C-alpha cells in the first residue's frame, strides 16, 4: 500500500495549480494510453468481422488467411477489400479502425505515384510517404516506439546512475575518487561515433541501441546523486538512524534515497525528451533502427528529402514539436512543484 506523505500531497497540489504542466501531463498520458492500444485505432486488421453468423476479432489474434473468409488466398486477409466485398452480402460486415492502415503496408494506386497527399476519402489523413505507407500510422507507431525507447533508456540510465552516484556519495574516499575519474574519461568518449561504428558493422536492434546508449549515458545522473547523497549523509537524521543501529542498506534505501527522490523526479521529463530526440536523430542519420521500422527520424529524413510533399515533413515536425513541448511543460511544472521556495522573493 502506497502511503502518500503530506509533503508529496502538497507537491501534487502545487503541480495541479500549474495548468500548463498539468494539462500537458493529462494529454501525454492520454496519448500514451491510446498508443498502447494503437492496434485498435490504426491498423489494417479489422476490429470486428461478421462472417456467416460468426464474429471474428482479428486485431490481437493470430493472422487470419483470406481463406477464413471465403477468399482464394492463404495470406493475411485484406480487410479493406473484404469490407468492400461484404457491402453486397447481407449479414456479413467488417468494422475497420478509424485509420485502416498498418505502419508497414505499401499502398499503391494505379494512376499515380507516392507520396500521395492527404485525402479524407482514402482515410490517409496525413497522406502517405514515398513508399505509399500511411504517415499517420507511422507517426503513431513511431511515437509508441520512441516513448518506449526513452522510458526504458531512462529506467536503465537511472538505475545505474543512481546506484553508482549514491555509492560514490555514501562511501566517498578512494571509491569516489576513482569513479569520478572513470566518469570523466568515459564522458569524453564521442558517443555518436560509437553508434556510427556499431551501426556500420551490425544493424542495430532496439536493444542494442538501448544498451549502447545506456553504456554512454548513465554518467549524467551520478553527479547529482553523489552530491545529494553527500549532503544527506551529513544530516542529523542519518546520524540518528546510525546511532539506532540501522544498517548501511537501511540508511541508503529508507532514509537517503527517499530524500533525494525530488532530484530524480525533476529530471525525468527532460530525460524522456532527450531519449526521444536521440532516437529520432539516430534514425534521421540512418544509424538507428533498421528499415522499415516506423520511426519519426526516418519520416523526417524522408520529409526533408521530399520537400515537394510537404505533408510528410509538416506532420512529423508538428508531432515532434507538440510532444517535446508538452514534456518540457511537465518538466517545468514538476521542477516548480518540488521547489521548496514558493516565491523567489518575499511578498
Amino acid at each position, binding site marked *: 500500500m502506497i502511503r502518500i506523505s503530506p509533503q508529496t500531497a502538497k507537491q501534487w497540489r502545487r503541480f495541479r495549480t500549474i495548468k500548463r504542466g498539468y494539462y500537458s501531463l493529462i494529454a501525454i498520458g492520454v496519448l500514451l494510453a491510446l498508443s498502447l492500444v494503437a492496434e485498435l485505432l490504426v491498423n489494417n486488421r479489422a476490429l470486428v468481422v461478421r462472417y456467416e453468423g460468426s464474429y471474428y476479432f482479428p486485431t490481437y*489474434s*493470430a*493472422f487470419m*488467411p483470406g481463406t477464413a473468409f471465403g477468399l482464394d*488466398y*492463404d*495470406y*493475411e486477409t485484406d480487410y479493406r477489400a473484404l469490407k468492400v466485398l461484404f457491402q453486397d452480402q447481407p449479414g456479413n460486415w467488417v468494422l475497420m479502425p478509424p485509420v485502416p492502415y498498418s505502419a*508497414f*503496408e*505499401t499502398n*499503391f494506386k494505379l494512376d499515380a*505515384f507516392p507520396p500521395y497527399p492527404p485525402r479524407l476519402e482514402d482515410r490517409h489523413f496525413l497522406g502517405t510517404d*514515398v*513508399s*505509399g*505507407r500511411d504517415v499517420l500510422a507511422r507517426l503513431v507507431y513511431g511515437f509508441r516506439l520512441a516513448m518506449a525507447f526513452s522510458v526504458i533508456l531512462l529506467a536503465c540510465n537511472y538505475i545505474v546512475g543512481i546506484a553508482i552516484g549514491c555509492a560514490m556519495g555514501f562511501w566517498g574516499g*578512494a571509491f569516489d575518487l*576513482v569513479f569520478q*575519474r*572513470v566518469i570523466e*574519461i568515459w564522458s569524453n568518449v564521442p558517443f555518436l561515433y560509437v553508434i556510427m561504428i556499431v551501426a*556500420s*558493422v551490425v*544493424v542495430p536492434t532496439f536493444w542494442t541501441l538501448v544498451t549502447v546508449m545506456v553504456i554512454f549515458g548513465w554518467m549524467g545522473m551520478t553527479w547529482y546523486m553523489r552530491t545529494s547523497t553527500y549532503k544527506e549523509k551529513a544530516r542529523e537524521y542519518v546520524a540518528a538512524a546510525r546511532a539506532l543501529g540501522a544498517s548501511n542498506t537501511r540508511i541508503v534505501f529508507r532514509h537517503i534515497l527517499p530524500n533525494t527522490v525530488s532530484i530524480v523526479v525533476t529530471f525525468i521529463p527532460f530525460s524522456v525528451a532527450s531519449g526521444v530526440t536521440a532516437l529520432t536523430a539516430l534514425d534521421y542519420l*540512418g544509424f538507428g533502427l*533498421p*528499415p*522499415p521500422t516506423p520511426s519519426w527520424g526516418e519520416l523526417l529524413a524522408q520529409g*526533408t*528529402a*521530399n520537400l*515537394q510533399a510537404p505533408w510528410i515533413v509538416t506532420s512529423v515536425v508538428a508531432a515532434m514539436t507538440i510532444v517535446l513541448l508538452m514534456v518540457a511543460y511537465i518538466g517545468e511544472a514538476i521542477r516548480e512543484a518540488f521547489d521548496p521556495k514558493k516565491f523567489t522573493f518575499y511578498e
Partner: protein
Amino acid sequence: MTRTLVLLLLSLAVASCGQEEAAQGPVVSAGDAIDLVMETRFVADLPTYDSVPLPDGLEWVTNEEDPVWSSPEARRGGAFNTFMSSFPLTLRTVGPDSNDAFSAYKRFTNLGLVTVHPNTLDFIPQLATHWAFDPDAKTVYYQLDPDARWSDGKPVTADDYLFTIDFMRSEHIVAPWYNNHYTNQIVNVVKHDDLTISVEGATVKPREELLFEYGLSPTPRHFHRLDENWVRDYNWRSEPGTGAYRISRVEKGQFVEFERNEAWWGDEKRYLANRFNPQTVRVTVIRDMNVAWEYFLRGELDAFPVLMPHFWHEKARGPAFDNGYINRIKFYTDTPQPSAGMWLNTADPILADKNIRLGLAHAMNVELMLKTVLRGDYERLRTHHDGYWDYSNPDIQPREFDLRRAGEYLDAAGFATRGPDGIRMRGNQRLALRVVYSTQEHTPRLVLLREEARKAGIELNLQLLDSSAAFKQILEKQHQITWMAWGASLTPRFWQHYHSDNAGKPQTNNITNTADPEMDRLIMEYRAASDKETRVRLAHTLEQMVHDSGVFIPTYKIPYTREAYWRWLRLPEHYASRTTEAIFNPLVEGLFWIDQDIKAETLAARARGETFEVVNITDTTWRGE
C-alpha cells in the same frame, strides 16, 4: 584501480598513435591532407627480365581505320566536380578493401594493351600499337607503343608488364583472386625486346577473347617494393598510371582529386586524342544523394546521374531546368547489362535448400516493384548475363511472382505451417531472411518486396549498411541475401561467380558460394573452348544451370543512361557511344569537355535571371528491338 587506469590511458594513446601511423604511412603529411609522393625511389634494384627471340612468321595487325568517336572541338581545361558516397578505405587497386565503389576511378588511371571500340566493338590499340596471334590460339604478341609514359614521366617498357605478373602472383598483395588469375589464367608473359611482349593464356580461345580475357596492364616496377608490409605501406600511395589522370590530392574523408598529366602521351594517338578533357577531377564524399543533388543544383557538381525514377521525374524539374541552365539527356545503349538483383548465399543453412531459393524467387513481386516504385522506367532483367549479344540465353525467363508456386516450393522445404504473424515455420524456425544492401534510395523497393513476400509467408529483414561495410560482409560471405549489382563484362564470366574454386573462401566473387561439380566441368570447358560457337553453346547451358539453381533473383536492367548536367559541359555530336555506361565519367570515356566561356555566361545569366533554351535530349541511335 589506478594501475588499470594508467594502462587504459596508455593503450588509448598507443592506439591513437598506431592509427595515425597507419593512416599516413611514410608519406609526407600536412594536417589531414596527404601530399602524395609518387616518385618514391626506394626500389633500389629494379627488377629486370631477360628477352627471348621472337618467332618468325608473325602477322602483325593493328586497327587505325575505325571511326574516331571523340570530338575535334573538345577543349582542354577546367575542373570537373563529382561525388562518391563513401571515402575509399585504400588507394591500392588490389589487396584487402580495394574493391569498393571508388575502385573504378583508381583502375582507370591505368590503360590496357588494347581495348574495344565502343561503337564497332572491334579491338583498337591502346598501350600496344600492333598485335599478332600465335598459331597455338593461346598466345598473343604485342608491340608496345614507344611513346607510352607513366604519369611520373618514365617510359613504359616490357619489364613493367613482366613485373605485373610477379606483382599479381605475390602473396604480399593479399589478393587471392588476382593471384589465381595471373597464375592459372594468364600463365606466362615473355619479353622479346624492350617494346615487344607476348602473353600466354591457359586455354585456347577465339581471337577476340584472347585479347579481352588475357589483357594486361603494366605495373610501375619502380614504384612498388613488394614485401610483407606492402598492403599497409601502399594504402595511401598513388600508383603512377598510363592514363590521362593521376591522383594528385587526397583529403582524408573528404575528397580525392585527379589531375591531368602534363603533355600526356595519349594526346597524339588516334583513339585517345580529344578525350579526358578537364584539367582536374575532384571526387568529393557526399554521403547522401539528396544532399549531393542540392550541391548539383547550386552548380557545385557539374553533372548528376538521374537514372533513379524519382530523380528523373520529380527532382530533375524546376527553375534551373526550365531556364535552360541544366540540360537533360536520355541515351539508349546496347550493352551487356549489370546483373542487378538478389544473390542468395547457398552456404546459409536455410538457403542451402533449393526449394527455398525457388520459393523465394516466386515470392518476389519484382513486376509490381517495376510498375510502382520504379514507375515503369526500368525493365525486368531476365538472367545473370542479359544483353551479352550472342552469349545471352534467349530462352530464359525470370521467375514470376506466383504465390501458389512459391507455396509449393516452401511446403516442400518443410516450411508448411504459418506462425501467428503469418510467417512460415519449420518446427520452431521462422522463415526470416536478412537482405544486406547499401543504397538508402533502394529502401522503398525493398520495402515493397518485403511486404509482398509476407504474402508468401517469408519475412525479409532489411539490413542497410555503409557500402564499404556491406562489401566487406558480402566478400567475407557472411550474408544471407545481398541486394546488389555486378558490373557487366564483354562476355559472361562464370568462373569467378560460380566455380567451386571460389566458393567458401573470402574475397572472391562467388558470393552465392555455388559449388556444383557438373557446373565446374562446364565452366572449365567454357574457359578452354576456342571457337565462339562452342562457347556460346556452353554459356547458354551454364546460364540455364544458374537459372535452375535459383541462386540469383534478377530484378531490373536499364537499357539507357540518363544524366542531368550543367550546360557548360559540352558533348560530341553523337553524345556518347553504343556501350556508354556513364556519359560524364571523365576517366572512362571522357568525351565531354568544359567550356569556360559558357560557364561564365551561364553563371552570369543565372545571377541576372536570364534564360536559355531548354535542352532535353533523347537519343535512340542504339535502342534495340
